[in-house]
């Protein structure tokens, strides 16, 4: 706490500034930093969620690391992350450039696009479960054979549904980010390219895409880190099933912790989640020279 009083302003007067940050810090430390350290500590314990907590060394880690469920959950998490990124990014860039136009109907379209963002993941999952029902859902009613599959009953179909629903929910958000990015590209670049006789496709790949570099990094960081937390959607939509086809890490953590009462191993999985989030953020930062957080602070 000495920092609070010792670091006074340039003028040498005592400043209340540090104190202004204290309430936010208290909340953040109490319910985010302490839990973050706590989850690491808990991964070395045995706890059933109700009784007393016992230190148990590496027991939980051994249980988690030798469980074949872990590589599977890691693989599913990675797949969801990679495939949903690969689906969402081109779609968002395309829609973002489209929405960047000034035409009025595009503004109307964008208003409609954003409605899915208002729905909770739970609401979306509940609705899609009914919509995809092979007997009474959309496919059956329309008489489209290809639409009336047992969508949530087959591993790969269920995986595809998860990716689709994630995209349905989040593509609008990322389109909005790209829309802002495209609108900030200086018009003169396009004028120059046009004088040089560059076609539209060429302009897109030589100007739009490179100029969107930081937007792509920001959006990708949000997508990828966000994909680690698709808990509620998958929980309500498939509960990780069929079998454990869509059992991502976050779900694995919940099921082991709160359903199987194995808080120790569940904490170990949470630690893996945290490390993955940090690793990805650092990686993307290296890739782009800066990350979503710092891009906001640059040019200050």
């Amino acid at each position, binding site marked *: 706490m000495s920092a*609070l009083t010792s*670091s006074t*302003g340039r003028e040498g007067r005592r*400043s209340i*500034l540090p*104190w202004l*940050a204290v*309430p*936010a810090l208290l*909340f*953040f430390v*109490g319910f985010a930093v302490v839990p973050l350290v*706590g*989850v690491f500590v808990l991964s070395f314990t045995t706890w059933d969620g109700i009784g007393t907590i016992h230190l148990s060394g590496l027991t939980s880690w051994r249980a988690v690391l030798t469980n074949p469920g872990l590589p599977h959950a890691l693989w599913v998490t990675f797949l969801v992350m990679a495939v949903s990124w690969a689906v969402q990014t081109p*779609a968002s860039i*395309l829609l973002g*450039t489209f*929405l960047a*136009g*000034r035409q009025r109907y595009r*503004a109307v379209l964008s*208003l*409609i*696009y954003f409605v*899915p963002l208002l729905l*909770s993941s*739970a*609401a979306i999952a509940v609705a899609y479960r*009914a919509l995809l029902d092979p007997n*009474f859902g*959309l496919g059956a*009613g329309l008489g489209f054979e290809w639409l009336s599959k047992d969508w949530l009953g087959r591993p790969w179909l269920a995986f595809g549904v998860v990716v689709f629903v994630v995209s*349905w929910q989040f593509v*609008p958000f990322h389109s*909005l980010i790209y*829309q*802002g990015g495209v*609108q*900030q*590209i*200086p*018009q003169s670049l396009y004028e120059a390219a046009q004088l040089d006789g560059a076609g*539209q496709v060429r*302009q897109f790949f030589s100007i739009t895409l490179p100029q969107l570099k930081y937007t792509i990094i920001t*959006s990708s960081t949000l997508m990828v*880190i966000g994909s*680690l*937390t698709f*808990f*509620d959607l998958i929980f*309500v939509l498939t509960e990780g099933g069929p079998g454990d086809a869509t059992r991502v890490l*976050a779900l694995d953590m*919940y099921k082991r912790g*709160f359903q199987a009462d194995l*808080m120790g191993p569940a*904490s170990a999985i*949470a*630690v893996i*989640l*945290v490390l993955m989030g940090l690793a990805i953020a650092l990686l993307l930062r290296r890739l782009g020279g800066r990350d979503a957080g710092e891009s906001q602070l640059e040019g200050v």
Partner: protein
Amino acid sequence: MTTTLTKPRPQKTAPRERGHRPGATARRRNWLGGLAGWLWLAVVVVPLYWILITSLKARSDYYASNPLAPPTDPTLDNYELVFESDFISYFWNSVVVTAGAVVPAVAVSFMAAYAIVRGWRMRFLRVANGMFLMGLAIPLQATAIPVYLIIIKLQLYDSLLALILPSIAFAIPLSVLILANFIRDVPKELFDSMRVDGATEWGTLWRLAAPLTRPAILTVTIFNALTIWNGFLLPLILTQSPSQRTLPLALWTFQGEYGVNVPALLAAVVLTTLPLIILYAFGRRQLLSGLTAGFSR
């Protein structure tokens, strides 16, 4: 219209951007984009339309009719059933948790953001800022188990306060980041003249910085309200009894209770989303800028 979408952040767009001109891309034709645009419209609208019309169908109608045909005999019975299932109580819980978390979260974030911008010279504040930034890179859901433990130790398990406290903490990093960005754009001369007039930092905070960054405060408020209103994990692990249930969790239990009654389930989906739709209708700009929350750079 598109320009109005970016407008809520007027201070952000101006001089530092690279020659930004609104609607600069307007004249370029983009066939592929156009195709994608209309296709996506269908992808978005069909499920939404289906949710709405199905929620107005009688159960028999749901099984018999084409799913995309409007109800032959629209009924509000499903909505009635949802209201009879304690919907009001869940709704109220959601309101309490959202308001109870958003107001303090924005207030403490604003104070912290102000301190970070004005006191950047102080190491303590830079460290604090670094911690908040780190919070952005970490999936906070991973802290679920210790949060659960802390809530039990505080004897708050199965109460609305149990949902409010962690929600505040989780809202802080992004809120501080966005608010700090906006406070940074307040001209330094204004701060200086406040000081010459003898204003304290506390006074400057509320009488200068807050009014000048009102759009940002509104944006952050709406973003946090949306996130917390739709929150699922915290209610799932921190509450137990129906009397403390919030809407998203209630939806999930509805699914278990009358899973076969799809029209009623979808009426519940519509009702839980209705407040946000109304908010969207009135505060479209703030909501949209709230959703992207300063990421469009």
